[in-house]
């Protein structure tokens, strides 16, 4: 069996620089990262350490200055924009601090929206199961602004899992939530990622949240420090 076969995401000396000369900021500086299929990895760093920039590049939301990102064996840093949006839709599930739900659509519509964009047939039992797992069963008809922060984040988690992506990227998923709700959302995220065999990368500055992960990557000044 090939040793690298189960690697879902890999970066090769990934760099992102802003500015030039004296103003050069190395947001991400030569990061080599490997994430295995089914793993739950937390990326921990203080604000400004470059962790969000890293996540944006992992999720094909931003282009690296140099270096490559391999997702599912494909070099996504070489893709054109329309192929990238396809990759983002099919292979990556995003969860953001600010939920990013569409306010005019109800919970169910928000969850199935990315699938509709891809003309995929709706695996309704699967989505119902996710909704049940996340405790949103009674809220599917609700609009996002009638839900609490925790519930909105659950909805975002359901949306991320529904498309059966190769990897779920979460950027400070509990950043807007109080500690208890945050812990709860993290436990749900972990449980559902495990249940549906998802690879999970969570970015956080909170080391208490990071300990739920199988592995923690510490980032400081754009570099991996442990």
């Amino acid at each position, binding site marked *: 069996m*090939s040793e690298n*076969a189960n690697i879902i995401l890999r970066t090769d000396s990934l760099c992102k620089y802003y500015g030039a000369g004296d103003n050069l900021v190395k947001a991400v500086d030569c990061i080599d990262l490997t994430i295995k299929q089914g793993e739950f990895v937390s990326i921990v760093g203080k604000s400004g350490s470059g962790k969000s920039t890293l996540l944006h590049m992992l999720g094909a939301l931003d282009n690296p200055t140099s270096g490559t990102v391999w997702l599912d064996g*494909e070099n996504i840093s070489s893709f054109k924009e329309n192929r990238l949006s396809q990759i983002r839709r099919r292979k990556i599930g995003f969860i953001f601090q600010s939920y990013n739900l569409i306010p005019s659509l109800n919970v169910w519509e928000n969850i199935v929206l990315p699938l509709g964009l891809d003309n995929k047939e709706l695996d309704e039992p699967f989505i119902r199961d996710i909704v049940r*797992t996340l405790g949103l069963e009674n809220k599917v008809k609700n609009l996002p602004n009638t839900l609490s922060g925790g519930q909105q984040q659950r909805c975002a988690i359901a949306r991320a899992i529904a498309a059966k992506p190769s990897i779920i990227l979460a950027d400070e998923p509990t950043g807007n939530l109080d500690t208890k709700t945050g*812990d*709860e959302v993290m436990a749900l995220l972990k*449980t559902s990622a495990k249940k549906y*065999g998802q690879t999970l990368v969570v970015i956080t500055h909170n080391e*208490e949240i990071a300990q739920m992960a199988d592995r923690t990557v510490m980032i400081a000044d754009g570099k991996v420090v442990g």
Partner: protein
Amino acid sequence: MRPLRNQTHFYKNIYFPLLVIYLLFTVSLGFIGFEFLNEQYMQKLKLLSNITGAVLSENPSMEDTLIDAIQDTEWHYLTDGFATLSQYGYRESLSMYEDALYRDSLKSFLFLVLLFFILSFLIITICFILFDKKRKWQEQKLLTLLDHCLSDDYSFLEQRKNIDIIFNEAFTDTLLKLGNKLMLKSQLLAEERDNTKSLVTDISHQLKTPVSALKNCLSLSMEADSPQERDALLERCALQLTKLESLLEALINISRLETSMITLHQEKTALADILLDAVNTVYVKALQKNISVEVLTDSEDQDESSADSLTLSLDRKWTVEALANILDNAIKYSPSGSTITVRLSKLFSYVRIEIEDAGIGIPKNEYNKVFQRFYRGQHPTVQQSEGSGVGLYLSRKIIEEEGGSITVKPAVKQGSIFVVQFPLPYVN
């Protein structure tokens, strides 16, 4: 066999050119057919004009009869005409082929039909062969791929490009997902095997020290000079044995959980009962150190479904064990006379149990490690106290198996807070 590249390639390089050739051929055939018919029509016109000219130059009064015959659709003069013409070799049964006038046209027409047939046949055959080749090629590749899967070789997963040219995108995606899933499964199996191996190594290692201590104690006691010394040594032996016994018990628990020899029997159990049992387990130890255990329920939630009257789907025996381990640690590392607080709160989909002690606390970089098998903290107090590094590991194992989670965070003043979350019934 040459690969046909992918679908678009196939259409671009084979299907469209063939279609164009076929269309051009059909159109030109149409033109030729039209020309052919037109020639026959001109031929007939010429013949009529010739006859009309000949007859009218001899007998102009015949004009009416002649025009009548030309426009006659009921063939009144047909029999008479044939009778006369037959004398010159024009029989009714005369085939077109025998007429020199038509022979060439007929030949070229038949030739065209033949050509059309051959070309259609060729194009259809070529298409069929190409499709068949492609199908066979795909089948062959698919079989090779499946063979790789069967022999646990998943290197093909890395070469998406090689698979992309064989099948269309959706097929490739599904195929790769299937491969990934299989690979993950076989890896899990291998991991489990390794896990069992390391468990055996770890356990034997853990047992080695107390057993050799016991052995030394015993051999010393046998060589003891006085009965008092022997008694003292034997007492130490007994102590070692007790330690060994408790270690063994913990190890048996782990190995059972690890190798899935016991499955948790999750039944509806009152959380209050479990907590009570867990506190009772450590009660004596707490009493010895004069530590009080306080259980608080979230004050804002005092209705009938408040946290302590909840019924959860848990394995009573093992969950008690898991919570008792945490409480046991809390007591072990807390100063005498302090208080351990257990706070319950019911959240949206979990019930949250916070166990706060006033102990030595856990440094940030050990948060993850304290839940690892046989890990013991670096703090001198931890190093000096008894323990095998099994308790919290077992707790985490049990709690996660039940769909819950356990984390640790620092208490506000001093000590640690262990946060345990159990799923509320409707989550599972």
